[in-house]
């Protein structure tokens, strides 16, 4: 990146409706125009640029072992509203890959538990896809994921297919629904029920702040040490380069030094996340 503020030209190749309704989520599959995809690692993000509206940070939703770049976008502001109007063939800008990734190489030989809530499943998907594609390098994989209702679950088709294939996927919704075969209750309660074994295990959690907070307590009760727990943080971001100061916590820029943090790093900070 000669000028890191200038995006690569990219084209939307597919748009998938994940969630409909008042808080819609779409997943965009994007290809760079006139160049190969850059190397990246699970957990890194990009700034997606729509000229006239601005830029927004999204974690890359697919593992680098899969083709193209995927971003799951909750319609919530100026940029995301415009993105939700866009179709296959439309042009966007991409700046990335940005930030610190999950240390998946360090986790080789270990069991992986992902604990997600709502659209917080996005970075976790980049992990479980990677672990599935490199199955022999890792121990057991447990995917724990929940949303408010069954309609709010993202990557439904993929997750149900994984269940069919025999993967350990534990879904939940907050309130009972007709025909729902899985757990009913909050995500941390599902973790409490499943009781993942902390031995030789890494737990990664991402979701609404309150879910993360309670999940951390549950994991600690189960015997997980802070060093075994990872999360990825959300902050307002503009430059993505550790310059504009918006995403800063202490001396860390979430865009550059994060968004992936170990829980031990977070609890050493004065400013609590």
């Amino acid at each position, binding site marked *: 990146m*000669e*000028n*890191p*503020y*200038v*995006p690569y*030209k990219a084209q939307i190749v597919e748009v998938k409706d994940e969630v409909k309704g008042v808080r819609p989520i779409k997943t965009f599959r994007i290809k760079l125009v006139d160049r190969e995809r850059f190397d990246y690692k699970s957990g890194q993000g990009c700034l997606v640029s729509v*000229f*006239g*509206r*601005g*830029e*927004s940070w999204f974690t890359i939703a697919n593992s680098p072992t899969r083709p193209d770049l995927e971003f799951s976008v909750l319609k*919530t*502001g100026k940029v*995301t509203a415009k993105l939700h109007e866009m179709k296959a063939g439309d*042009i966007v*800008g991409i700046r990335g890959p940005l930030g610190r990734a999950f240390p998946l190489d360090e986790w080789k030989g270990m069991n992986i538990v992902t604990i997600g809530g709502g659209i917080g499943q996005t970075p976790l998907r980049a992990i479980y896809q990677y672990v599935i594609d490199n199955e022999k390098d890792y121990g057991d994989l447990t995917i724990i994921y929940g949303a408010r209702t069954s309609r709010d679950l993202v990557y439904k088709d993929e997750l149900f297919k994984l269940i069919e294939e025999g993967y350990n996927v534990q879904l939940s919704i907050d309130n009972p629904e007709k025909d729902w075969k899985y757990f009913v209750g909050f995500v941390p309660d599902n973790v409490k029920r499943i009781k993942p074994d902390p031995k030789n295990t890494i737990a990664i959690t991402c979701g609404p*702040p309150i879910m993360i907070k309670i999940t951390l307590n549950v994991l600690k009760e189960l015997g997980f040490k802070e060093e075994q727990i990872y999360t990825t943080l*959300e*902050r*307002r971001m*503009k*430059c993505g*380069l*550790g*310059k*504009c*100061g*918006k995403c*800063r*916590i*202490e*001396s860390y820029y979430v865009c*550059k030094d994060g968004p992936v943090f170990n829980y031990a790093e977070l609890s050493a900070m*004065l*400013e609590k*996340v």
Partner: protein
Amino acid sequence: MIYEGDFLRDAISNLLAAGYRVFAPVKVGDFHIFREISSANEADFNYILPRNSAKVALFPQNEVLIEYGEWIEKIPIDKKKIAVVGIRACDAKAIKLLDKHFLEGFVDPYYKARREELLTIAIACDNASINCFCQSFGINPRKPEADVVVSNIDGKVFVSANSEAGKAFVREFKLRGESEEESMIRERFENEKIEMRKIDVDVEKLKKSFDSPYWKEVATNCKSCGLCTYLCPTCFCFDIYDEGERRGVRIRAWDSCQFPLHTLESSSHNPRSEKWQRLRNRFYDKFYYTLRKGDYYCVGCGRCIDYCPAGIDIVNVISGVR
């Protein structure tokens, strides 16, 4: 070396003739501001400290990053040479701190283009303003770290060049060598402390006081106006936004950690929604967070004290942490 004449004004004339963009203090009403000038007559050097800092020359309040239509049309990086004339030791040190921020890690190409072509001409202080405290940070106000330094001592104009660029620049001036006595006078001048305020930074105490109710007290009268951050020569936060839906410009503009919108996320979560959290952030940023990278991001210029509408005084706040 000694110059017989008005060095600063002659320097500006030379710089303008050589095609430099020149930033110098201009008298506006009863105060001075740094701004771009087009003739040496516009500058006025009768001040202790201009109201704003010289950071405007390197990091303008607004600048266009990208011009776009359907796609990117132009990336306007200005390669014109820049000179800042008449800065003090505090602002000279602040430029070094901005360098660290903008040039380490990802290199900011807009800042770099200006910085590479920057010539700094400083004036040594011979007294302090009521809120100066630069000496607390080991800055010598009588010996600024700049390419060229001008010291007015006993009616004589002493000029020293401290870099290759500075040496090349002063070569065009008729400077005479100093007599032994003049050198002694200059050295005595440079080594004499100036009477000024002192700040007492206790990092350990800061670490322990993060959750203290002190910060709410300090922020009682704060207006969250962000003036402190705008006048601060080391504050660097900015926003990026697009102007124009189909055709327009992507702009970077100064932002402030004192504004609630600075950190407001689209989910409506705001990590620093209270004004005392934002004010505390500024003080910890200056004296603790940036310290992990080796520096306090305060140079003791005192501007934030001079102009705070709520009378918040960084020296008292930091010295009185509990």
